[in-house]
């Protein structure tokens, strides 16, 4: 493999790592403040216990998110110096605002973690809200920068130079809104189902079920609502892409032949050499409808684009299938939760809890898959239509060593964090009620 490939792998790996912590950092604070609020209202000590346990989780995840994020802000320059040289000034605005959001978050976190019994109760609780809001704000801001890579605007491209830069227009690029909306909802889906799953497992094992049922309930409500909205927002994204990045859409759907009334493929094995898809289920006209809201709309196929502008079709297609499959499944799970509110006897069934245990990792798998769709689907471009990834990569050789190092360090880190979380739960379970 070449230097470029290793740089891409490293970028993908470190971003894929960071996004998990970023999602948790965005969403956990909301669970924490809900539980905290319930403690303030009911003075039920279980809620206090839960708040404090979650707070430790937030701190651990926050720091892991922060250090991996710090690494990323260097990495953008270290791996893609040519990209940053030209793109940095253009997409600087979301990043500088993001810096402010990080600060607000860190300040609020300082107040929250160290403020127990020192700050007035309401103010202390309120700093928790600020953590959540500024976390979501930083997520939205970075995604705007990524949106610009997909839909570059706010400059004129003259003789290979980016001129007449308008940072505000670049910030509010056409991909910004759909991507930020979809990503924010995704963070809620993924984190909620993961947290709910962890607590469902404790209920399943009958370890302090009362406490864990309370925790489960807080998490799953967020998750169920978000999982319901997710496919709607995903549909918006897909319609957007159909207009803006038709190659990406074609790759997502493994759609080779341009035509009208195009079917949607579910599943299927892609053969990139022969440009065919086998073993698929076809839904007639569905792709035309989903992309343009009209069964007869024309959808461009991959053959209409030069081969050297095709992204890796199979990866994008499979990733898309995984995301949509999981999205559908989690929406159903959300509905199941609302049903169980009506039929409370379900809460006494072991299998009910087991379902949520099994679903726990799926949200995060969908997040990773979704990013693969977005990022791999943009290849070979780093700035869609303007700069190729291969033009942006660092001239320094030896990227493989750096890649392997990151893999080892982050794997060890991930294992340690998981182990720490298990210890948190162990302590929680062993406390006498």
């Amino acid at each position, binding site marked *: 493999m070449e230097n470029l490939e290793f740089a891409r792998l490293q970028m993908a790996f470190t971003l894929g790592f960071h996004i998990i912590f970023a999602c948790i950092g965005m969403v956990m604070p909301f669970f924490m403040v809900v539980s905290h609020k319930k403690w303030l209202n009911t003075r039920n000590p279980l809620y206090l216990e839960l708040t404090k346990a979650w707070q430790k989780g937030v701190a651990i995840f926050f720091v892991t998110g922060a250090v991996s994020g710090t690494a990323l802000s260097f990495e953008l320059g270290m791996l893609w110096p040519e990209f940053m040289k030209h793109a940095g000034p*253009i997409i600087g*605005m979301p990043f500088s*605002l*993001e810096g402010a959001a990080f600060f607000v978050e*860190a300040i609020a976190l300082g107040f929250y973690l160290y403020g127990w019994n020192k700050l007035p109760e309401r103010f202390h609780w309120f700093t928790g809200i600020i953590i959540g809001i500024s976390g979501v704000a930083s997520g939205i801001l970075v995604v705007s920068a990524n949106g610009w890579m997909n839909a570059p605007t706010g400059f004129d491209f003259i003789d290979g130079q980016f001129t007449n830069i308008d940072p505000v227009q670049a910030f509010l690029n056409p991909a910004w809104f759909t991507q930020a909306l979809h990503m924010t909802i995704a963070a809620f889906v993924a984190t909620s189902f993961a947290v709910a799953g962890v607590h469902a497992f404790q209920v399943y094992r009958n370890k302090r079920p009362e406490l864990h049922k309370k925790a489960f309930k807080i998490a799953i409500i967020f998750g169920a609502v978000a999982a319901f909205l997710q496919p709607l927002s995903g549909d918006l994204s897909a319609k957007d892409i159909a207009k803006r990045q038709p190659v990406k859409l074609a790759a997502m759907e493994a759609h080779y032949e341009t035509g009208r009334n195009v079917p949607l493929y579910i599943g299927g094995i892609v053969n990139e050499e022969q440009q065919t898809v086998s073993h698929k289920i076809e839904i007639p006209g569905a792709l035309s409808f989903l992309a343009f809201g009209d069964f007869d709309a024309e959808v461009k196929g991959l053959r209409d684009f030069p081969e050297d502008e095709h992204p890796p079709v199979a990866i994008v297609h499979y990733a898309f299938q995984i995301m949509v499959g999981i999205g559908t499944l989690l929406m159903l799970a959300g509905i199941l939760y609302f049903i169980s509110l009506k039929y409370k006897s379900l809460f006494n069934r072991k299998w009910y809890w087991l379902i949520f245990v099994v679903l726990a990792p799926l949200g995060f798998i969908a997040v990773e898959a979704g990013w693969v769709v977005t990022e791999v689907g943009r290849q070979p471009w780093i700035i869609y239509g303007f700069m190729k990834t291969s033009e942006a990569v660092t*001239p320094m*050789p030896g990227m493989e060593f750096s890649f392997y190092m990151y893999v080892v360090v982050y794997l060890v880190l991930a294992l340690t964090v998981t182990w*720490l979380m298990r210890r948190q739960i*162990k302590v929680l379970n062993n406390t006498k009620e």
Partner: protein
Amino acid sequence: MLYIVLFFLLFSLLLYVLLGGADFGAGIVELFSSKKSKRITRDTVYRVMGPVWEANHIWLIILIVIMWIAFPSYFNVIMIYLHVPFVLVLLGITMRGVAFIFRHYDAIVDKSQFFYNWMFRISSLVTPVFLGMSFGSLVGGRIILAQDFSGYSFPELFIWPWFNLFSFLVGLFYAALCAFLASTLLIGETKGEVRRMFSRKSAIFTTVLVLLGFILILYGYISEVKFIKDFINNPVSIGAVILSGILLFPLWRAIKKQNRVASRYLAGLQVVLVLFAALYAHFPYIIITTGKELSILEGLPPHSVIQNLAIMLLIGGAIILPGLFHLMKSFGMIKILETGKEEMGH
């Protein structure tokens, strides 16, 4: 507008060196403590630095973001040629950050604390050394700006520019600065026996710092490092160094007398003077390569970008600085008195 951006660039650099530095320094002080005082240092550091710990390190991110938005050509050179030491810095930051949080937030306190503690202490020392080495190599005059990389070996381009004695001395100097800042800061946060301990440590690190600074300048002068020679020949820079030398006397007294406020401000002033002296002689030519000196003001992006950034920085500053100040005030100063008593009891 450019001046606003430059102001924020230098401001975040200064705050990172000061606050981030004090933070690294806390780990270094702990590393060089006896077994018993390691424990005390650890607890004091957690109490004092804990709430502001995260915020201290965001200055680095602000610094990077300003660099890549407003000084892209300059940033480009740094990112290509200092790739390796930066990977090491990042590794250090990662290890340190997680070790700090693990040791204080692990639900079960057992033998694993041993690993967290040592990881924290060692990365606290190593990270500022590599940071200092990176800065040293920027001005060390050994970076080869190559058009075509094939004529050079990997070490020539990516290792020797930063892996040399001069850079290493800069690295050690910065690490000593960190330790000096931390121990001086901690004087003001403790009482009684513990305060005497930090006052002693602060005196030791001041001595180490001055010695290292002297060796650094001497070595730079002898081995003809351009940056050092220009620095010595620049009346303003050398004036700043002499002033900082004179101010060592009141600082020394303040440390001995365990004067909380004076020692802290005088220590901060030392850093301002040293940083000023280092940057002034060469500003805006802060990258010195084998061939030429690169100005930070070269290849600036269009005015619209600078203007937008300046506005964002002003807005951000207006939101953040009061909050930050409030946080430091709430947790830094107020608690000193109450917690001083606790420590006496231990």
